[in-house]
């Protein structure tokens, strides 16, 4: 469900992530094989691919957590080789595996991460109230995280990831294992964030969620095999759903067992 309907097609789009010929090698194994793509400001960009295709490796590089072997990479205006600290200050990150501290309360988690992101106490307070109200979880601010259901935790984790108004937020399989209603509420949050100017870079296993993105890329064996809007991809591969597009591309991948 692209937000691009609001953006006129004649507008020149600003590139907030710039990747040209990104290569990442681990010994002889090439995890990322000459990736090239742009992500535009305010876009919801979907990053799809099977496990082992190289998604996580690429995201780690974009987040400044890993150094590329070669290629030009610019994230939020900063170079991925030399300015990783600047990158980290300007992005948010959330994944299915990484979540908030289970033993701390909701409020404590916000305070902690707010501090990590360099927000002042007043800002943290405001943001916490604002975000919790938005989630209708204001009553739970003192609740310890492990007492909350998974769906709530994921939504809270997302809010924490954007509380410092980063330029880009990276979401790694954020809706894995979550019930279908909560999943959609999560995407409501994503839309709002995008509406507020945050660029969203999301990976997902759910092909219907691919449709919610403005543009998607599909990674296979370390390469980008497709990069376009969902509508265009369906036309190109003569498929009625993104699931079909994905299956078609994935099945033609080498069966290496890697």
């Amino acid at each position, binding site marked *: *469900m*692209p*937000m691009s*309907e609001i953006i006129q097609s004649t507008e020149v789009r600003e590139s907030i992530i710039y990747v040209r010929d990104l290569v990442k090698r681990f010994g002889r194994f090439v995890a990322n094989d000459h990736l090239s793509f742009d992500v535009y400001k305010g876009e919801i960009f979907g990053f799809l691919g*099977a*496990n*082992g295709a190289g998604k996580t490796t690429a995201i780690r590089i974009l987040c400044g957590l890993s150094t590329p072997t070669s290629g030009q990479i610019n994230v939020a205006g900063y170079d991925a080789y030399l300015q990783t600290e600047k990158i980290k200050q300007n992005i948010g990150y959330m994944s299915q595996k990484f979540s908030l501290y289970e033993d701390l309360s909701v409020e404590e988690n916000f305070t902690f991460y707010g501090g990590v992101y360099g927000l002042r106490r007043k800002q943290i307070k405001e943001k916490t109230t604002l975000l919790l109200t938005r989630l209708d979880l204001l009553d739970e601010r003192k609740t310890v995280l492990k*007492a909350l*259901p*998974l*769906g*709530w935790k994921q939504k809270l984790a997302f809010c924490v990831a954007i509380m410092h108004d980063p330029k880009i937020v990276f979401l790694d399989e954020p809706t*894995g*294992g*979550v*019930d*279908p*209603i*909560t999943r*959609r509420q999560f*995407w409501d949050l994503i*839309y709002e964030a995008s509406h507020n100017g945050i660029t969203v870079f999301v990976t997902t*296993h759910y*092909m*219907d*969620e*691919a*449709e*919610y993105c403005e543009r998607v890329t599909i990674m296979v064996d370390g390469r980008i095999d497709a990069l376009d809007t*969902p*509508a265009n991809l369906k036309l190109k591969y003569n498929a009625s*759903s*993104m*699931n079909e597009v*994905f*299956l078609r591309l*994935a*099945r033609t991948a080498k069966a290496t*067992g*890697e």
Partner: protein
Amino acid sequence: MELSVVVNDIHKAYGQVKALSGLSFEVKPGELFGFIGPDGAGKTTLFRILTTLLIPDVGYALVDGLDVVKDYKAIRKIVGYMPGRFSLYQDLTVEENLNFFAGIFKTTVKENYYLIEEIYKQIEPFKNRPAGKLSGGMKQKLALSCALIHKPKVLFLDEPTTGVDAVSRTEFWEMLKRLQQQDIAILVSTPYMDEASLCDRVALIQQGKLMDIDTPQAITNKLPGRMFAISSPAMYSMLLDLQQYSRAVSAYPFGDSVHLHVIDTSFTINDLEVYLTGKGQKGFKIKIIHAGIEDCFMYLMEKHHAHV
């Protein structure tokens, strides 16, 4: 006919958290039975009780006529179990893993090879590779082979397709369907709603409670009212307008369309067209569709107030 699995009013709590609240159902031999529900629904707890790894607080369960608490030793000889996390020995090769599991069940790979032949053929080229170095899909096939090698009467597969790519997922279910012919009862749990249609019968579970249990067709048929799919070039604003539509029960995004659920019997498509045009929507398409499992799941969630 002897039932493969009988569950009667099972309750299980971990401290304050109630994992299972009064679950009851039956599974027949040769049935491919699916448990559909998100994380935290109670699927793993249920499977652990049925494979005798946990004792229920209240209620009883029988596997092949044997009680899960009293006759656990006998049950452990006749079930195949594939737990959520990969349960293979990462340092042993594919072949070694298979031989190991055959051995502990006092059988040989040869004896029941016909059961796993189709599955194993796909990973046989890698038989000397350590299991830890296999891709997700390959590990899954190996784990299934190891669970089948002793010809179990009942097979329990706990989220076997989680974290595995879409291609392997499809292949996996195809394999399961072929296994059914061997008269083995197969119980599978999964968070993926679309996999429900591949089962003979499914149980929709949310927060430890059974919301419905029937064939996928029957469940979707049971859904009151009608389901519409509306697509439009302006999807987001379309979604917002539909969510405000008072005559509908729900409006949820489903990929490139919005599913609108209407129970009101006097409702017509024309009414909807009028409403949308009135909101300034143009170029939209409305289709009547048959509800899917996911639609039903969400409807039931709202109905049971199981939604938080």
